[in-house]
C-alpha cells in the first residue's frame, strides 16, 4: 500500500494527432486537496480522464489507489465530475441521482445528503434541464459525491458560480479531505490555488510545478499565486529558448 492516492509515471497522451500530455510524472498524496491549475486547453481534462481511466493513453502508467487506472475495483472508489455536466437533463435532480446511486449500490439516503451538500435542496424536484448553469454544474458535482468515494476527480467544479457558492464548495472540499478523501480539483482561476494543499501547475501539456502554495511563493518570490505562475512560465521559457 503506497501513501500516494495517484501515481502518474511518464504519461503521454495524443489527441487528434497532437501531444496533449507530454511525459508527465507526479504523485498525489492521500487525504489532501490537490489543485490542478493551468490555462484552458493545457491538458488538465485529458490528464483527469487518464486518471479515471477513460482516456486512451500513448505511454506511461497511472496508478490510482494501488490499482491500474480504469481497473474494475476503482469504479466504486472514484467520484468523477466532468467539466460539461454529464447528468440526464430530462430527469429531476432526485431521479437522476437515484439512478447513479443504484449503479453505485449506494444507499438511497445518499441522494438527499449530496443534494444538501451542493446546496440544491430547494430544487431537488426540478428537471435538470431547467436549471441554471451553476445549478446544473452543482447537480453534476453531486453525482460524484455519491457513495463516499475515496478519490474525487473534479474538473472545474466551481466554474460559473458566484463567490458565495464557490466559498461553500471549497469548504465542502476541505471537509471531505479532512474526513480522509483525496481530492484532485482542476481550475483555471488562480485565486482558487490558495485553497489547495498542493498544486500541480500545467502548461501546454507539461507540468511546471508540483509543490505546496507556500513553497511556490517562496521559490518564485511572488506573493500572489498568479504572479508566481507567470514567473514560472517566464523562467521555463527562458531556459528552453
Amino acid at each position: 500500500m503506497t501513501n500516494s492516492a495517484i501515481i502518474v509515471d511518464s504519461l503521454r497522451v495524443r489527441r487528434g494527432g497532437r501531444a496533449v500530455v507530454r511525459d508527465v510524472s507526479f504523485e498525489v498524496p492521500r487525504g489532501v486537496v490537490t489543485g490542478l491549475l493551468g490555462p484552458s486547453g493545457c491538458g488538465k481534462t485529458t490528464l483527469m480522464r487518464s486518471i479515471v481511466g477513460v482516456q486512451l493513453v500513448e505511454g506511461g502508467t497511472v496508478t490510482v489507489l494501488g490499482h491500474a487506472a480504469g481497473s474494475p475495483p476503482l469504479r466504486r472508489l472514484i467520484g468523477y465530475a466532468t467539466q460539461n455536466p454529464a447528468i440526464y437533463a430530462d430527469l429531476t435532480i432526485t431521479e437522476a441521482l437515484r439512478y447513479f446511486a443504484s449503479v453505485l449500490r449506494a444507499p438511497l439516503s445518499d441522494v438527499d445528503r449530496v443534494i444538501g451538500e451542493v446546496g440544491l435542496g430547494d430544487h431537488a424536484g426540478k428537471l435538470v434541464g431547467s436549471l441554471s448553469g451553476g445549478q446544473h454544474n452543482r447537480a453534476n458535482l453531486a453525482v460524484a459525491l455519491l457513495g463516499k468515494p475515496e478519490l474525487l476527480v473534479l474538473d472545474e467544479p466551481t466554474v460559473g458560480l458566484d463567490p458565495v457558492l464557490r466559498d461553500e464548495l471549497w469548504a465542502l472540499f476541505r471537509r471531505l479531505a479532512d474526513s480522509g478523501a483525496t481530492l484532485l480539483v482542476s481550475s483555471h482561476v488562480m485565486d482558487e490555488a490558495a485553497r489547495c494543499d498542493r498544486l500541480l501547475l500545467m502548461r501546454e501539456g507539461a507540468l511546471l510545478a508540483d509543490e505546496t502554495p507556500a513553497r511556490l511563493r517562496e521559490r518564485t518570490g511572488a506573493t500572489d499565486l498568479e504572479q508566481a505562475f507567470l514567473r514560472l512560465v517566464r523562467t521555463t521559457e527562458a531556459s528552453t529558448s
Partner: protein
Amino acid sequence: MNPALTMATARRILTQLRHDPRTVVMLIVVPSLLMVLLRFVFNSELVFSHVAPALLGVFPFLIMFLITSITTLRERTTATLERLMTLPIGRLDLLFGYALAFGAIAVVQVALAAGLSLAWLGLEITGSIGMLMLIAVLDALLGMALGLFVSAFARTEFQAVQFMPLFVLPQILLCGLFMPRGQMGWLLNWLSDVMPLSYAVEALTRVTTSGSIDGVIVRNLLIVAACALAALMLGAATLRRRTP
C-alpha cells in the same frame, strides 16, 4: 451482469420518457393511426388482412430504430455514457436495460395496433394472437438493437436520423411486402435473405394464414432473435470504456 442494474437502467429510461409525454403518446398511438390509415387506403378488408400482419412488425421496427439511435447517441454525446463507464455498471447491464425499457413500450405499441386491427379494422388471423404479438415485439427489439449499434457511427443527430433510410428502408423494400421475395432477381433475393426483417415478415404472414405453429415460424423467430442479440452484442462492442 446484474439484474438490479438492468432494472435500474430500464426504470431510468422510462422515467426520462415520462417527462416527455408527447413522445410517449406518439410512440404508442402512431402505429395504430398508420394501421387505420392503411385500412382506408386499401378500402378492402381482404387486402388489408393480407398486408397488415407484416406492417404490425414493420412499424415498431422502424420507430424503435429511430428512437434508440437518437437516445443512445444523446447518451454518448452528453458524456453520461463516459460517466457510466467510470462506474461499476457492465455494458450489458446498460444495453439490456435499454432492451427492457423499449421492449415494454413495444409491447404496448404492438398490443394497441394489433388489438385495433383485429377488433375494428377487419384483420383476421388463423394462427395465435400471442405468436403474432411475440414476433412483432421481437421485431421492435431488433429495430432497437440495430439502432443502438448504428448510433456508434453517427456523430450528430442529423447523421443518426439519416441511418433510418440507409439501414431500415432497404429492409422494408426487400422484405416481401411490396414484391414476393421469390420474384426478385438473384441479387435482390440474396440481399433479402441476409436481412433479418424478411424473416420476421415471413413469420408474421405465416401466423395469419396457418393455424399451427410450424417449423418455419420457429426457425424465423430464432433467426430474428439471434440477429437482435447479435446487434446488441455488436452495440456492446461499440461502448468503449476508454476513448481517444
